[in-house]
């Protein structure tokens, strides 16, 4: 398998993501600087978390308008798997690759804690390592993770099984509608989620519930 990690200035969980992909996949992903002309051949494209362009203007808004995102869009349309975590999720939404919006947390504060996630759809290339309804642990660390979509969009993504993860057991940290933590595009090859599975992949992290996501998607594309 080949993975590529896109890096924009201000992202800061790129190192965590590269470490997770390397540890689980056994191969270091290629790192793509936002000014690079193209993305090298890859089966998985990851946009990690952080504060691209300082989250100024609106989280993810500036990065989403960067030329490299046209390349991400092209690859996604061809079926390449694209994963966006946290700021990466915000960028995918701002780029129009995923529907809805991520608003400020209802607390109006940054929140870093562990939450519970329910695997809502275990029949995707990202989630097959889990079982449907399985509850996993996962940390969150964000200021703008409050997912919102209008009633029609919501009906559509819920109806099409495009909610991949939901905050479970009353641990919704940000006020997201329907407890939505991660969603897929219609073709289910693009996943965006606010929590950080890359920070819970080994004993040193106090658990490895996030590992299966990477193990699955990296195996799938092997």
């Amino acid at each position, binding site marked *: 398998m080949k993975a590529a990690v896109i890096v924009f*200035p*201000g992202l*800061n*969980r790129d*190192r*965590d993501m590269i*470490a*997770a992909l390397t540890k689980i996949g056994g191969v270091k992903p290629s790192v793509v*600087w936002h*000014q690079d002309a193209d993305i090298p051949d890859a089966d998985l494209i990851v946009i990690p978390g*952080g*504060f691209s*362009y*300082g*989250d*100024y203007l609106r989280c993810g808004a500036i990065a989403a308008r960067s030329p490299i995102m046209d390349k991400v869009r092209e690859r996604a349309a061809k079926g390449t798997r694209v994963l966006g975590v946290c700021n990466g999720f915000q960028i995918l939404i701002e780029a129009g690759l995923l529907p809805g919006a991520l608003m400020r947390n209802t607390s109006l*504060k*940054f*929140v*870093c*804690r562990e939450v519970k996630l329910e695997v809502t759809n275990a029949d995707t290339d990202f989630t097959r390592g889990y079982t449907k309804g399985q509850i996993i642990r996962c*940390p969150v*660390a964000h*200021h703008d993770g409050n997912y919102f979509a209008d009633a029609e969009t919501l009906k559509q993504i819920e109806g099409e099984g495009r909610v991949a993860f939901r905050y479970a057991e009353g641990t919704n940290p940000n006020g997201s509608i329907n407890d939505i933590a991660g969603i897929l595009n219609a073709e289910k090859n693009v996943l965006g989620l606010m929590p*950080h599975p*890359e*920070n819970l992949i080994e004993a*040193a*992290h106090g658990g490895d519930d996030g590992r299966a996501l990477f193990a699955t998607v990296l195996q799938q594309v092997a």
Partner: protein
Amino acid sequence: MTLRNDIAITPELVASHGLKPDEYQKILDLIGREPTYTELGIFSAMWNEHCSYKSSKKWLRTLPTKGPRVIQGPGENAGVVDIGDGQAVVFKMESHNHPSYIEPYQGAATGVGGILRDVFTMGARPVAAMNALRFGAPEHEKTRHLVNGVVAGVGGYGNSFGVPTVGGEVEFDARYNGNNLVNAFAAGLADTDKIFYSEAKGVGLPVVYLGAKTGRDGVGGATMASAEFGDDIEEKRPTVQVGDPFTEKRLLEACLELMQTGAVIAIQDMGAAGLTCSAVEMGAKGDLGIELDLDKVPVREERMTAYEMMLSESQERMLMVLHPEKEPEARKVFEKWELDFATVGKTTDDLRFRVFWQGDEVANLPIKDLGDAAPEYDRPWTEPKTPAALAKDDVPQMDVAEALLALVGGHQCSSRRWVYEQYDTLIQGNSMQRPGGDAGVIRVEGHDTKGLAFSSDVNPRYCEANPYEGGKQAVAECWRNLTATGAEPLAATDNLNFGNPERPEIMGQFVKAVLGIGEACRVLEFPIVSGNVSLYNETNGRGILPTPTIGGVGLLPEWKQSVGIGFTAENQPILLIGGPSERGTHLGQSVYLRDLFDRRDGDAPHVDLAAEKKTGDFVRKLIRSGVVSACHDLSDGGLGVALAEMAMAGGIGATVTDVEGNDPILTFFGEDQGRYLVTLNLDPQGPEIAALWKEAEALGIFAPWIGSTGGTTLTLGAATAVPVATLTGAHESWFPSYMNG
């Protein structure tokens, strides 16, 4: 507003620059003429308390700063300590008190930014941050606003920059009502052969300006930080800088990338007094002159004068001396990160600091004297009056269970979750112990087993009552917290926050606290490698509690051996290690007296440093032998609160036996020093524990088995059992309900 360089120098102008008449006379004697307006600004920047340490230097020299692992002690951007395998930890703590009171969000944010810059200036990637915050009384009208702003500011900057916050302190006391404290700590990792220093080398080399553009923000900030507050404090808001963590993150990556190219000869970040301090420091350290052409400085405001450019404290800026042949390569790195890169001057051999602006020479000063000839004072001080010890029978009584619940649910000992959940505590994926325990622990990236522990400590109540013992205690508690994780304490940084040193009683507090710190550091072999002094923390003539914050770093050869504070299993024996055989004797200056009886009397507990060392070394050895399942040091609230914290962290109860004849209040709430609680994964009747006791006895360490873990309640002696869930409810609710209230 445009300020001219030909502005007349009047006594009022001199005074408004924070320079005393005799200090101004010193300037006249030094340069043999009246200074220009820009030069006056440069002197005020270099000679204020914040930059010159003129009141504190004499006493700081008494601190132990050397040790077998110390690579760099005080005097550089940060201290550097060897952690083996060619790696070093680079760290420092610094205050941003005054700005954080005037504008809490930006004040705290730029405090974090400044300390991170100090660390990566030396070539180290920041891997951990802490912050020690002290606010006024909870009921004071401004406290909530300040807590909100400071915590959001610390988080806003650190989270965006991408460093995990692994520990810290939050405390409330009416003495901080008009002057809160924000002490920010950062640590980074570097290779020992790739540490960068500020000493310029070589004549005629380019002095390069990097990072963000210069604006008018923060002009005169260091001078502001060296004055007391009055009621006109709101007028000082324009002297607070504005932080841009996005630029700082790019500056970090660009600097580390640039250092890889071998282009950097010397580097200095622009902190207090910006361009002035950084240029003078680089030149003076290298015995070189510096020439600056201000017309080359990237600016973001129009018509900036030389005076403003020299005194601006705009953030996220660096000054470097580069190898000229590598300049194009260096420029490319900064272009990639879309940061300013401008050659603004050169090194010279005339030992002058010369500044040009619009074709005029606006300053020409002897560079060495700007630093070396700064005034130094042996300020008069008086011996602090230590309050009388409490009478032996003066033990105000209260139901033990009720007292425990009130303390764990009070402002001093309640959970700080509301605070630390606003900080990213796990970014970088190396956080082994996050806030809420004795010390933060991280893995060392690039090494299979090594870990680092961090703790920040001081007890201002003790320092107020007895500055010498309080100074000792701050060091001992930090050393103890590191030890409680299994780490070997390596070295510390001190952030000394005091009132007006021109008052002999305040100077007395400072002197005695520094002497106490020095004594403890010597005995515990815990040298001070960096630090910062913040004086004039007063409002309308009333000083803060003396607050010498100690930030310590410890090394774990095997992070897997590290233990936390939470009980991990049922039916494990609990040992109280260290301290007197009566278990608890000292109630003076305790949280029990202050928070439950509104009493602030008695002497501070004294630290027996030899016993401290012996006990700590014994506990560390136990932890590393693998028999310890949890460990916690005893501090605020004594044995009772420590047991409750272990129970709450582990979600497991405990039953602790009382000792007949001992006063339960002294036993459970006395704040005797040098004590730890450990739980063991050993049979309490077995031979291993017997051997352990034998060893403790031989060393003269008191280590009684005081009870066992298990169940869902915590029972302290004869007191009513308290459900752990009830303790947790009280512990977790104080902060959120206060902030929502």
